């Protein structure tokens, strides 16, 4: 090995370059690592040169096409001395060859994260790196962390390395990446922190053998004990124990050997190299090797250890643990017997600490010791849960790559489908509104009248006369000689927050009002204990207060969305006829919608308490929002759709209807209008800016003519 101490593998000031930096895994880990310690100087990915990885708003890591280009482009002081390889298995050999051939002078260590690298390739990398004097960790390592220097490579410590790794005296070397972090967390409960955490990987060939790593840890000034997680396969432990036996004053080792199951069951373990292939490679043989070296039996948490010189001598060599969660106790024993100070005050003892329990009826049938009660949730998780628990409605969606994937539609080469239903079957049923509800919400309507109401909303959205902004946009487009679909696009482009988009705000408002109630069925006024009258009064009073404060201070105030209309506004009691039609239909059919009832009552009450001078019209946007929220409510309660989706739907519902209406406006204009007839004559346009002279090129701009 080139390194002579663990810090040579990773320390502060190291400059790390990342191969295949734009990959799913690597970009994510790179961002966290760079935020944690800022040691990434750049990366490369074939065909991606010129891109960047944004790790904080406005701050980026450069991406080059090749490693050679990275070296040529970065200033000398930023030349990497460490490389981390995230390339796919078939590309790993090529990447390492390029690093060795161009970066031999600079690169000291290569960390290969990639899994499933062929053993032949791993052997070739070992040979190549040996010749070039470069140390290789991996393949299939998770990386490494140097706690004292606060730096890491790879994903050790996950998205919050500081949570698991506190400065301390244990060096963790593990065949499993996950166990590095897990064991560091366990040790903290004994008041023992970490100096280094290193994942060796557990492929058939581990390119930095345990004996070499132990020698490096022995020379590290912060490290007092070495904690090992070991699996079957390979002679690494045999060689390591031989080394320990020869060494004088080697540091104590606490070891956990997993994988004895291979000896009793015909199974294969998760790591490719965890395979029994001869003497000293089984878990039992490795346990025996360590036990023989330590001179003390494996740690027994029930046993009372007498502090004898013999025990001290043994523990100075180390001890094996049989169960992972006894690691803190075993480590405590070593520190106690050796009379060493802990690194910090011990955290809480490791024990069963359930965060959530609901055994329901089963709880009544189980023996008492099995019935657990919720324990203390650690921060910041307690706060995060509290915030998530406040949300009573809507599904918590997880984000992931949806490239080439869709819940909304499918086509198996034979037939198209919408949320699993064949389009042909939906066509047979012949109800567009029903199919639309399915397409937008993923479920067919729960009540037949919902489809009818959606149709009414679509019709209501078609047109409100040629003077509306969206109709004007369609007419402008026709006048300019565009195609019909461009006219529709022009109309859609003119739909905005104050024209057609106000329904989103209405939904947000309704969710705020009803979100904390126990409303189950918005179509049944008696099915919940919602006191509508009180809600209405509360909202009306709140509005009145807001308005009064604003009038006094001369500032603006938050209005109730979708109350009032620029056309339907002059009577004492105003109605939007489209909303009226929907309301009338509900009345005729003996149907009810609590949201629409709320809006209507609110308009009345606002006038009644003097918050408004007239009864404002509940406009069509409000009606559309109320109808769609009625349809969405059960799905929100059952957490089958997200709140975001419910909020967006009134806008898309209006836009769909209006796009169809705009097509009508376009076709009409196209048939009867003349080219450019929408152009406003120059004489009708008012010039608000006075003319100014533009100076000839090269001379200073003149002053404007007054």
């Amino acid at each position, binding site marked *: 090995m080139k390194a002579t101490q663990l810090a040579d593998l990773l320390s502060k000031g190291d400059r790390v370059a990342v191969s295949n930096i734009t990959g799913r895994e690597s970009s994510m880990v790179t961002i966290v690592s760079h935020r944690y310690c800022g040691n990434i100087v750049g990366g490369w990915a074939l065909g991606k040169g010129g891109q960047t990885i944004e790790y904080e708003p406005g701050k980026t890591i450069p991406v080059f096409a090749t490693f050679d280009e990275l070296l040529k482009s970065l200033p000398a002081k930023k030349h990497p001395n460490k490389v981390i390889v995230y390339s796919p298995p078939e590309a790993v050999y090529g990447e390492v060859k390029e690093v060795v051939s161009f970066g031999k002078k600079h690169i000291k260590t290569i960390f290969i994260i990639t899994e499933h690298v062929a053993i032949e390739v791993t*052997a070739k990398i070992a040979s190549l790196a040996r010749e070039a004097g470069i140390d290789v960790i991996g393949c299939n390592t998770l990386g490494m962390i140097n706690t004292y220097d606060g730096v890491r490579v790879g994903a050790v410590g996950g998205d919050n390395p500081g949570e698991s790794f506190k400065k301390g005296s244990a060096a963790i070397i593990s065949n499993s990446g996950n166990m590095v972090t897990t064991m560091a967390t366990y040790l903290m409960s004994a008041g023992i922190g970490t100096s280094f955490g290193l994942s060796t990987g557990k492929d058939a060939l581990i390119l930095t053998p345990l004996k070499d790593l132990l020698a490096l840890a022995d020379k590290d000034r912060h490290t007092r004990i070495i904690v090992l997680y070991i699996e079957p396969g390979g002679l690494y432990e045999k060689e390591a124990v031989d080394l320990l036996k020869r060494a004088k004053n080697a540091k104590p080792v606490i070891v956990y050997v997993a994988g004895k199951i291979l000896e009793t069951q015909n199974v294969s373990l998760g790591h*490719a190299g965890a395979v029994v292939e001869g003497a000293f490679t089984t878990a039992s043989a490795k346990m025996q090797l360590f036990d023989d070296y330590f001179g003390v039996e494996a740690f027994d948490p029930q046993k009372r250890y007498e502090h004898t010189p013999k025990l001290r001598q043994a523990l100075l060599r180390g001890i094996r643990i049989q169960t992972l969660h006894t690691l803190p106790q075993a480590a405590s024993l070593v520190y106690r017997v050796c009379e060493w100070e802990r690194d910090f005050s011990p955290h809480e003892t*490791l*024990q069963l*600490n359930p*965060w959530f*329990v609901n055994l329901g009826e089963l709880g009544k049938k189980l023996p008492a010791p099995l019935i657990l009660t919720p324990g203390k949730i*650690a921060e910041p998780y307690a706060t995060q849960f509290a915030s998530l628990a406040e949300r009573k409605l809507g599904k918590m969606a997880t984000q992931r790559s949806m490239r080439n994937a869709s819940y909304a539609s499918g086509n198996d080469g034979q037939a198209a489908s919408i949320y699993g239903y064949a389009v042909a079957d939906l066509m047979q049923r012949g109800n567009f509104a029903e199919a639309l509800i399915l397409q937008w919400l993923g479920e067919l309507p729960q009540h037949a009248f919902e489809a009818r109401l959606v149709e009414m909303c679509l019709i209501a959205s078609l047109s409100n006369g040629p003077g509306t902004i969206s109709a004007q946009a369609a007419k402008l487009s026709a006048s300019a000689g565009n195609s019909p679909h461009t006219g529709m696009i022009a109309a859609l482009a003119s739909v905005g927050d104050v024209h057609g988009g106000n329904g989103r705000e209405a939904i947000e408002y309704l969710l705020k009002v009803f979100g904390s109630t126990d409303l189950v069925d918005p179509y049944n006024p008696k099915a919940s204990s919602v006191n509508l009258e009180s809600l209405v009064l509360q909202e009306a009073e709140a509005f009145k207060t807001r308005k009064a404060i604003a009038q006094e201070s001369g500032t603006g105030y938050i209005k109730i969305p979708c109350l009032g209309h620029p056309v339907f506004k002059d009577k004492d009691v105003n109605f939007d006829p489209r909303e009226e039609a929907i309301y009338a239909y509900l009345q005729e059919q003996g149907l009810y919608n609590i949201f629409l009832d709320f809006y209507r009552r609110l308009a009345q009450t606002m006038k009644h308490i003097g918050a408004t001078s007239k009864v404002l019209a509940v406009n069509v946007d409000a009606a559309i929002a109320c109808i769609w929220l009625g349809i969405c409510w059960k799905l929100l309660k059952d957490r089958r759709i997200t709140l975001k989706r419910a909020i967006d739907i009134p806008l898309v519902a209006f836009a769909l209807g209006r796009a169809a209406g705009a097509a009508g406006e376009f076709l009409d204009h196209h048939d009867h209008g003349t080219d450019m007839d929408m152009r406003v004559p120059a004489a009708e346009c008012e010039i608000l800016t006075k003319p100014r002279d533009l100076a000839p090129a090269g001379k200073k701009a003149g002053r404007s003519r007054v």
Partner: protein
Amino acid sequence: MQQITELTFLTQLAKRSKLPTPEYAVTPLDRKALKGLLDTWQKAVVKPDILAGKKGKAGLVKVVDDPARALQEINRLLNADFGGKIPRTVYLTRYIPAELEIYTAITYNSSFLGPSLTLSLKGGMDIETVEDTYKRTIPVDVYKGLDAYQASQILSDLQCPKKIVSAFSRCLVNFWDFFITSGMRMCEINPWRVTPAGEFYVCDFKAVPDESNFKAGNLAITFPEYPETITPFEEEMKELAASSYQGQLHISDLHGDLILPILFGGGASTIITETLCTCGGSPIFLSDFGGNPTYERMRQATAVCFKHHLKKAALLLILGGKANNTLIDVTFQAIGDALTHYVEEHGPVFLPVVIGRGGPRLAKGLMIMKEIMETLKLPYVIFGYDTPVTLVAEYAARLAKAFAPMRKP
């Protein structure tokens, strides 16, 4: 790991290997056919096609010289059970008279961090029982390969009869060529039989291909199905695992009957499974779904697990250590969706669910699971990263044992 047996080698690989092999015939063979073979060969070796353990087929093979005896041996082997392993078929090879047997193996060696050749003139024996004086292991340069000079040195060192050194060195070079060009992880010939005339024959063969090496894939070997070697569940998961490298999808059937374990992390899955076994949790299989699998991959994998095993399980265990890069919300949403889908398809299920995890986006992930458990009305206990996985596994084993008698048939 797949294993290439002698019969698979003889039928599919021997011709491309330049390794001298005896003639062979595969059963069923009638008395007339056997007579014809024995008339030509004089003697034959009757062998079972079986996934051999460390000791190879030692003790299982029989030399025969008449058709009646041959038939008797064939029938015996076809109906035999060798420590739970049942022969797939029985075959015969021509008997090679020998004055010397040689052991050879090429494998990747953790001490040399590269390939190595092991050779012993005490062939036909378990190599681990052969004293060090009689065997040699030498490193082979992965770039340069094994040359005849290097091979002859090791033979001379073992005091191999001089008359065969040169010819056998060439055999060893061919052996290396086969190993490296076929992308093997390990190849063992035990024994080579050396005839009095100085001819060499591969008289037993075992190899393990490196599934990550494209050369092994290019061989397009059809691996025969051995009785009870792979369950339909393992088969389906294997197919799914091979479809992508994004995240681990490793399972191994344990034939337990209590706990259905969805486990994360190579190390964690091992120690959790061992804890479950020790505590009587009887895990149905061993699983490792770490390495940040995508939503789709995780959902498909758990759907396969549920399809095969949920009905009989007494507890669903979803457990891993503190993840470094696996997104908890994505993987848990995928598991929850697979479970919901299962219930939609097969009707309600009732069994306790124990969950334990740590890592990125933990709160959202656990909340997703909690909500799904509430919706499906499943009893649950959820642990965070501060409870050790081994303690959770112990608890899960106790809970599964308590619930097992309450299961509906």
